[in-house]
Structure formats: structure tokens, C-alpha cells
């Protein structure tokens, strides 16, 4: 199996891994978004809690969670490895910063944007997992006769705080820019470039990078503005 190691340790192989994990994460974001949109259903979080309960008890989802975590980790480690080797390729910088035209301004900032997303992810995962490992959930509900944490109320309470709303909205902006270049770039790295469908890839990429982060950002905004609450009330979690 040394050919696999040889392939993925080359410069093109490392890019290939960025592309494959990137497309995997792009698909994941859509799944993640559809679940999150249940928060806006206006049913005091019943649908969202049922969805969360289903996710928790499905062995297929549990397995996907491991793959998802691996996907994120590979994308990050590979990205950092590329960043290090790319920096090594130019030990002496230019006195005048490069003025060459690029396809878009984001392409030169994928690493920094990726680092911002990493910070967001760490806080995001802490907020999600703290009630599993560290803190007793403020309220519970009953699903199928089982007492479970009222996750919807936790989310609703979190987004009554304007700071968190702003943090999530700004983070989604950064995710959007990262995707704006990442989407089309992933296809180019896979060698999928042809005048027949390049326009389609670019178009879908732009639409995706605007619509998906915007939909994610709308959730905290609407919760804050429309004062959406769960059965646990708006003070839960604080």
C-alpha cells in the first residue's frame, strides 16, 4: 500500500486530500443546516429536540460522527502541513508585496480564514459538548419515555446574548469566504476542469458559499430578533 502513502505525501496528493475532505465537509454542512433549521419551526424546539434525540440514538450517525471528526482533522492537519511546506518554498520574502492578479482575493487568505474557522469550531464544540461532559443541562424534556437534555432551549438561550449572535454571524461570514474559493478550488484540484462545466461549478460554488452560511447566520439572528423560546424559557443556560 506504499503507493497510497507516496501519492498522498506528494504536493498534489496533499492537495487532493484537502479537496476530498473539503467536499465531504461541504456535504456535511448541508446536512447540518437542515437539522438546525428545525430551530425556527416555532414549536418550542420539539422538532429540533426530536431530531437531536434521533441523531444520538442512531448507530449509523454515531459512526458518521467519527468519520466527520476525522474529516475535519485531516483537512486541518493537511492544511497546516501544506502551509508549512509552502512557506519553506520561499524562505526570503520580496521587499514589495506581490501585486499579481488572482482569480479572487480570498484565494490568498485560505489559511488565515481556516484558522478563524478553527477558533470558531473549538468554541462551537465546547458549547455543544459542555452539557454532555461538564455542566448539568438547565432543563430536560421527555422523548419516548426517556429524560433528555432540552437542547433547543439551550440554543435559544444562548442566542438571546447579542455577543454570541454576532460571533456566530461573523464566523459564518468567514466560512462563506473560505467556501467561496474552496468550492471551485476542490474541483480544480481533482482535475475536473472543462469549459463545458466550469461555469456551472463556479456558479454553484458562489451560490453555495452565499446561501448556506447565510442560512446558518439567519438562525441566531431570527432567534434573537423574534425572541424564539423553548419550553424551558429564555433564561435556561444562563
Amino acid at each position: 500500500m506504499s503507493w497510497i502513502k507516496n501519492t498522498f505525501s506528494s504536493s498534489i496528493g496533499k492537495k487532493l486530500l484537502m479537496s476530498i475532505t473539503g467536499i465531504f465537509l461541504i456535504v456535511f454542512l448541508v446536512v447540518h443546516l437542515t437539522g438546525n433549521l428545525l430551530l425556527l419551526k416555532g414549536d418550542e424546539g420539539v422538532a429540533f429536540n426530536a431530531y437531536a434525540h434521533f441523531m444520538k440514538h442512531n448507530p449509523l450517525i454515531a459512526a458518521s460522527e467519527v468519520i466527520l471528526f476525522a474529516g475535519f482533522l485531516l483537512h486541518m492537519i493537511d492544511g497546516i502541513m501544506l502551509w508549512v511546506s509552502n512557506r519553506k518554498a520561499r524562505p526570503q520574502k520580496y521587499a514589495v508585496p506581490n501585486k499579481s492578479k488572482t482569480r479572487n482575493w480570498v484565494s490568498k487568505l485560505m489559511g488565515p480564514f481556516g484558522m478563524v474557522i478553527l477558533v470558531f469550531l473549538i468554541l462551537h464544540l465546547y458549547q455543544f459538548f459542555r452539557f454532555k461532559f461538564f455542566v448539568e443541562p438547565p432543563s430536560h424534556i421527555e422523548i419516548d419515555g426517556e429524560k433528555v437534555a432540552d437542547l433547543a432551549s439551550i440554543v435559544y438561550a444562548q442566542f438571546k446574548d447579542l455577543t454570541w449572535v454576532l460571533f456566530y454571524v461573523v464566523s459564518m461570514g468567514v466560512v462563506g469566504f473560505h467556501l467561496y474559493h474552496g468550492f471551485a478550488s476542490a474541483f480544480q484540484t481533482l482535475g475536473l476542469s472543462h469549459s463545458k462545466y466550469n461555469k456551472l461549478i463556479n456558479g454553484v460554488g458562489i451560490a453555495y458559499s452565499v446561501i448556506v452560511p447565510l442560512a446558518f447566520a439567519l438562525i441566531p439572528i431570527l432567534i434573537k430578533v423574534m425572541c424564539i423560546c423553548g419550553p424551558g424559557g429564555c433564561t435556561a443556560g444562563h
Partner: protein
Amino acid sequence: MKLTLKVWRQKDSKAKGQIESYQLDDVSSHMSFLEMMDVLNEKLISEGKEPVAFDHDCREGICGMCSMYINGQPHGPDSGTTTCQLHMRSFKDGDTIYIEPWRSAAFPVVKDLVVDRSSFERIQQAGGFISVNTSGNTQDANAIPVPKADADKAFDAATCIGCGACVAACKNASAMLFVSAKVSQFALLPQGKIEAKDRVQNMVAQMDKEGFGACTNTGACEAECPKGISLENIARLNREYIAASLTSDEH
């Protein structure tokens, strides 16, 4: 016109090097950039100073020798132009022009603005060729029909002069546009198919060994290439590399 030149001076490959400032008071807008450099060197020689070393050969935009990073752009502000084909009419009176060598770990500075680009030669030697039987009954290349579209694309790729502007422009000092052009010009033609798998794998391995970076698809290389080599070639390089990795018996 009057110009202030800020030129990278470095005694040899081991010296540290720094930017030195020079004044030129009588530059004609009809001069080529290299003629302006010649005037600077004549001035330096008459003052008993060491002239600025820079690479040049044909001065017709075809040999790929000239290599100057001018005001933040390889080959200067004009597009589709080598430094030798750049003219002083692209600048105006009173301008300050920074002139630096290509910066890449794989292109070490030999002296002043001269860099060693033999890493490109080694990449070429790793696979940028086809093997042809020359025993006396060599087949006419035109005997094998080639679709017009493929021939055109192969020719476009073959116009790469190996100057290294792509490496100089890339934020990662990546040589992928160069390698992709050299791989594409053969991959598109029937004569190149025979060694296609070995070629792409050997050339990419050599490219990595030389210390060039990877591609972030910024497109800076394509924008600066004096021959307009398209990013489409990098996609083809990736495609060839993936296919070779999956199907080759050798690697």
C-alpha cells in the same frame, strides 16, 4: 524621464544582500527595460562600481532567460510580456522602481538579480521528453493523425519558455504551472501517451524534491505568465497524476 531604482544587490550566493538605491536622470520612454538596465550598468562602470548582474539572452521574449520581479510583479506591470519586451513607456517620470530576483528556495540567487533555475532542467530531465527510435526508419510525426483541438492545446502548453515567472508570482513559490505545461504538451498527443504515467509521476516527484510549494489555485501564475499558459493545464496535471497513481504498475 527621471527614475529612482531600488535594486537587489547580492555579491554571491552566500552573501546576505540588500536593496541599493540608484538615480537615472535621462531615461527614454522608447527604451526597453533591459536597455534601461544597460544604461544603469554603464553609469556604474564609469563610476568604478560593480555593474548589476542580470540574466538576458535573446531580448525577443522567447528564450526565457530574463527574470526580474519589478514593483511586485514578475516581468513587470504589462501582461503577456517578458522583462525584455517591457518598455519604459509603462513607467512615468519620477517613478520609483523596485527590482528583485525571483524568490524561491528552488531558485537560489547566484548574484544580484541572477537566479539558478537548473531545478527546472532537472524536472524536465525527469520526464519532459518522449523516446523516439532513431534507427534510420524514424516515423514521420505527421503520420499519426491528431485532433485539431488537441494539437492546439498541446501547442499552447508548449509555448512555455520556462522563465519561472509562475514560481515568482505564486504565494507558495509553486512550479505547478510550468510542470503542468510540460506534462500537457505530451499528454495531449499520441506520441506522449506511451510514457505518460511515468512522466507525470517522475516530474511531480522531482518538483517536490526541488522544494517548490503546492498550488492554492490563486491564478497569480496564469496572470503573470508571459505566454498565457492556462490554469486548465494544472487541472490536467492533477488528472494525469491521479490517474497514474491509481493505474501505474511502476510507482
